[in-house]
């Protein structure tokens, strides 16, 4: 089954963003940090396709480098969340009992904690930078992964093939790695894809408030923050980073939707349509 048109569009956006982030040095027309005061606040023109900011820096180049910041933070913070969530969730789900209860209550405490507050606390101890953003967003996000993984592990661990693995004498580690993980992968991939835009937005939010990536490093959130004072006399300052955020978020969401449909085993096996699934679920309930 192929991806739907919408998801293909999403895939193109994500691919484009990734390509731009990797090739930033090659395709950016100017140095994003180069201050040219005489070019201050120029509107879009042939020399500066997206215009310039207060310090005369080329906005297109800053958007391109900003894509790199967003992508790095999106992927790294998500990976940190995923790793913690995978370990915590699989231990909790696989062993169950009081271990499970303890871990899940700790998870509840963590997820009840607003990540902006956590960011502020962490920033009071460390310099705000890209690395601290990794940690804030990585640690803020793991609870959802832990819950998802736990639920899936519980589902898989009672399956007959896990019992079969135990009956042939496989160790716990082997069962988790070879029998449990591969079978919980699909929902995890989907959730991860859908989660990246959230992280990108959170980074922009943190940077906007000065808690994230620090100027002059180009990041879409930083650019929004710098441009907000000129919203009436130089609207392109916030238009372009806003549009970049919008498109990347839409791109990842569309891709995530498509992957969910693609990886859902029910779709894979029977090729059932949405309608018949709805009918089935109605009949069941």
């Amino acid at each position: 089954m192929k991806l739907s048109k919408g998801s293909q569009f999403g895939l193109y956006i994500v691919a484009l963003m990734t390509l731009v982030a990797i090739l930033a040095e090659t395709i950016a027309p100017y140095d994003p940090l180069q201050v040219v005061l005489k070019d201050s606040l120029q509107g879009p023109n042939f020399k500066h396709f997206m215009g310039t900011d207060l310090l005369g820096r080329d906005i297109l180049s800053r958007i391109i480098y900003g894509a790199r910041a967003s992508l790095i933070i999106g992927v790294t913070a998500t990976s940190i969340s995923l790793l913690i969530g995978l370990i915590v969730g699989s231990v909790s789900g696989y062993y169950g009992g009081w271990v499970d209860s303890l871990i899940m209550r700790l998870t509840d405490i963590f997820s009840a904690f607003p990540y902006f507050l956590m960011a502020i606390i962490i920033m009071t101890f460390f310099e705000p930078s890209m690395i601290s953003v990794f940690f804030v967003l990585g640690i803020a996000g793991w609870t959802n992964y832990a819950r998802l993984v736990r639920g899936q592990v519980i589902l898989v661990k009672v399956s007959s093939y896990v019992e079969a693995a135990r009956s042939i004498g496989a160790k716990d580690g082997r069962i988790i790695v070879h029998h449990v993980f591969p079978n919980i992968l699909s929902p995890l991939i989907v959730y991860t894809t859908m989660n990246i835009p959230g992280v990108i937005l959170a980074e922009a939010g943190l940077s906007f408030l000065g808690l994230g990536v620090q100027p002059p490093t180009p990041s879409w959130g930083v650019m929004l923050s710098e441009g907000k004072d000129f919203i009436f006399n130089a609207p392109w300052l916030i238009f372009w980073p806003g549009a970049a955020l919008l498109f990347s978020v839409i791109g990842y969401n569309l891709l995530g939707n498509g992957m969910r449909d693609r990886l859902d085993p029910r779709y894979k096996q029977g090729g059932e349509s949405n309608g018949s699934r709805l009918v089935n679920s109605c009949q069941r309930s």
Partner: protein
Amino acid sequence: MIGTNKATETLLKVENLKKYFPVKKGLVIQRHVGDVKAVDGVSFEIYPGETLGMVGESGCGKSTLGRTILRLLEPTQGKVIFQGQSLTELSREEMRKIRSQMQMIFQDPLASLNPRMKVRDIIGEPILIHEVLNRVEREKRVSKLLNIVGLSPNHGERYPHEFSGGQRQRLGIARALAVNPKLIICDEPISALDVSLQAQIINLLEDLQAEFNLTYLFIAHDLAMVKHLSNRVAVMYLGKLVELTSSEELYLHPRHPYTIALLSAIPLPYPNQKKGRIILKGDAPSSVNPPSGCRFHTRCPEMQDICKVMDPELIDIGNKHFVACHLHTDEKKKVGNSVTNHQ
């Protein structure tokens, strides 16, 4: 391990095995309000090379019994002695190592095969765990196993969902055979297959038994199949054995009223023959609150007063025909003197 083969004639001895599942109530503080007595004091022996059939209606605890013997479920009480070694006293690690000696074939062949693993890896896994073989030797063994169960070695590169139902069960059998076990517990291996495939799988199991000197504990609810395959048959009702004897004896001279009722339900191939079918009243009672005395007394057509009060023991009424029924306790007294105390 060395010398135990000679020392013990029985391969597997189950003594008073119990498996209770606690029933809990309460949201935060969970109170223990009762137990599901899935297996409640079962004792029997399996001799090397034989097939012991285990029959009973669904929910009587026969699958739980199989799993508890292999310690896939921890027994609540009782002993399982395999080749003179008490499995219930082994540590988890010791138990893990001894698992190569006893394997299981599962009811649902597709569900018991990891959908994300290739057949080659599924069948090779027990070898990988229990034996020191390099990759090439292992693959050779896997190919051989696939041949033995009637598949071709190039099937190894496929995934389980690419096979038909009968082929999948052959894969399950190949996995169970991979590390040369002595005992195989077959947990309703044919009940998920259609009739034509059932016969194929049964024939395969019989051939393998002859070839590799296997011992089977064959759990099923299909009495005709069990009769065909088993040397001895045990009948289970609500977590207890009610009758245990040789296959011919059970089908020719069933003693327990439950066994008689079960046997009368076997469909006959002769439409004109009169079927004296016994229909039991109601459903099997709950195993959380089993009836007092004999568990079968609520449905038994030959119930006496004593049945409500006293639980009959499984006793030998002669020729190793074991029955747990008050109807036959007197008979035991008659024959009892000549029968030596069976362990």
